[in-house]
């Protein structure tokens, strides 16, 4: 299990699982609650702590499609549930 060490009120304790976020919201990953092998795999696909992503789509079963940079990744329900995220303030993406 990976729980960030510096748990501040604005990070992990304020976080929620990705499926609880509404579609279209931009979020930052503050924790990944899964085993090492899966965490490595997520890292190789660009998902790690502090990664910013946008939830493009989610299903009732808990699956999700997220946008990271210009790429999109589909996550099964276990992985979506394992991602602890905090919503980011809305902004115009220009940079």
């Amino acid at each position, binding site marked *: 299990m990976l729980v960030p060490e510096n748990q501040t009120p604005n990070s992990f304790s304020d976080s929620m699982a990705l499926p609880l976020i509404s579609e279209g919201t931009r979020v930052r990953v503050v924790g990944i609650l*899964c085993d*090492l*092998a*899966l965490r*490595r*795999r*997520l*890292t*190789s*696909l*660009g998902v*790690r702590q502090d990664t910013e992503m946008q939830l*493009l*789509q989610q*299903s*009732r*079963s808990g*699956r999700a*499609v997220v*946008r*990271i*940079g*210009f*790429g*999109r*990744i*589909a*996550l*099964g*329900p*276990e*992985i979506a549930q394992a991602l602890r995220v905090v919503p980011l303030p809305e902004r115009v*993406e*220009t*940079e």
Partner: protein
Amino acid sequence: MKPNRTMPTRKKVYADGVRTVALIGNPNCGKTTVFNLLTGTHQTVGNWAGVTVEQKTGKLLTEGREMIIVDLPGVYSLRGGGAVDETIARDYIRSGAADLLINIVDTSNLERQFGLTVELLETGVPVIILLNMTDEAERHGREVDSDHLSSITGSPVLPFVATRTGEKIKLLEVLNNFVAPLQRTPPFTYPEVVEDGISKIMHLLTPDSGFRPDRATAGGLLEGTIPACGSTEIDSTARDIRRAIEAATGERADDVIANEHFRFVQKLVDATILKSGSIIPTLSDKIDRVVLNRFLGVPIFFIIMYLLFVVSFSGGNVFLDFIDRMSHALFVALPGWILQSIHAPSWIVQLLATVAGGSIQLVLPFIAPIGFTFLFLTLLEESGYMARGTYVMEHFMRRLGLPGKALVPMVVGFGCNVPAVMATRGIEGSRDRLLVAMMQPFMSCSARLVIYMAFAAVFFRNSGGQVVFGLYVLGIVVAVLTALLLGKTVLRGEPRPFLLDLPPYRLPTARALAIATWHRLRIYLWRVGRVIATATVCIYVLASFAITPAGIAGTNSPGQSVLGKLGQAITPAFAPMGIDQSNWPATVGLLTGAVAKEVVIGTLNGAYSRSRSQASPDYLRVDIPREMLESVATIPVNARALATSFADPLGFGNLAEGNSAAAYSGAKQATLRALATHFTPLAAIAYLIFVLLYIPCVSTMGAIRRETGSWRWTVYAIVWGVVVAYGLATTWYQLGTIARHPAASVVWVLTTIGVLVATIQIMKWFGSRTGEVRRDTAERG
């Protein structure tokens, strides 16, 4: 995009001994397009040793010298994870077989793809970084400083658009002038305690250790992503260093390494991406809104799969007669004409033209439907839709206890089980891959359809559609139940968590499609074709000779031949499913069908005939040019029928016209009459159930052996298939005839259930023995 102007020009690439150049990058980075651009038609496709992952190599002739270009499977990281193909790419890189790596990165996704780049730089093998798809990145407003990237990494960097043929010259210029630095400095350094550990491990990486002495390997051994492979010294040293790192930093060693690695990736990103660009809604976004929609996604998927079916079968049928008649003209009539013209002995004409040529004629028409299946699948994969389809169906498949990616092999299996088993290589985790591979023999392939058609023409003229459809469904049900059963017994566990990169939609070029389709088709033709050709000749020999008290002698009576006697000997075993002793030719069909389902009808044609002529047809009378012209004329005729076949791709409507279905199956009139005499409709269905489910053909068995790497699983596929086929066919027939012999039927049904329960108990017992081992394997995979 700033051009890179710091390409080294000191020495030519050949002077540095560069011969083998490997292309490596994340999946969907445009690697194969670069490979096609560099090698053109000078490509060979084989398999990586021990697995069925395609190994694509090509030759590049430049400045009068030759380079070997290796197109490695897409890989996200050298640190592990992913399916077999990623392992292949990692092992190749670690082996040091490549003299130079071309790392292809999608410029729009540098933040992610630099992760692999940095890992490659650590291997010490010279790297050229190809910033691919710069046109797409520029459309987003992205600006990358390739000069700076080159200076930080110490590697040439080339902005590139692989889809433009003119770009090849730029890459050749870099390749021809590339100079491998005599000594490479590490791209970045770890904290001192880690660096000390890496040095210690590198000292242990002697030639005898089997490891390449580079920082990537040492780092991998240290963090445990590369197993020490039995070297206790390396293993214990790595463990000691891990403890030292944890004591010094207060963090896990693998976290320290991963964090430093990521810090350098971030440095590259910050230093070289001058403008990250803005996300503007693309066509991919718009399409995804529809195809991933929670209500529309599944129906769209099924429509596309149905279209795949229609295109494969109906599109294939347009060329079926053409290939059939043309191959008869070229491989049967022409060699027969030549041999008879030079007065070759009759048996040589029979063996080479009628039998060997006939077997080629038997295989080639399957090119049409299978080639179209491959073409459509390649289009779906290259366009980016297949990943979406997998995502859409993931929930459904998971409820069946299957990984989301199980769907693709199942669809391929309707064409041919061999590529279906091969397609399981895309599934992550040995447990999931095994589960899906074991399902494939039950998917009803196009060769079985031919057998169904012959029986439908005789017994089910008005309900053939339902019977054939029912057999397809039965195959799927047995496949899913097999996976469920294995998942609860021998392969206990949960499917791996679903994680999939969704590439942007791209329209593949016709050339790329043609090359990819041909590569798949060529493997199919070689694998399946040679088995069928060999089997046909063996069957001919077995059916031509009889064992008599005087010794082995030729015979033209199928019943007296070795094959006939063998069939007669085992026929009593099939009595419970309605095959009586006089129907021994049906059993002979099952024997040859174990080799290839394609030869069953041909065998029945021979076995049901009372005597077989040993003389060949008079090929001198065949008008070969006319036959070839007539074969071409069938294409427009069949194309006209295509429009009506969209609602009925398998041609169920034609079953009412017995002649059409019979012609499709290739069964002779004498065979059809014999089927009508020897089978009842009930026994016919029992026979078809058995044909659907029993032993996979030899080519599929070979694919299972290669894919699973295990004889035990291959034997399991055979035994389980026979048990299920025998059980279901017997149960069907006995329940249907229970009024005639109630006691015997009840005994047979109870026996069948008993055998099935015993088999499941054995599987459970095996599961309890091997469960722990499998979990360990899954953790590592």
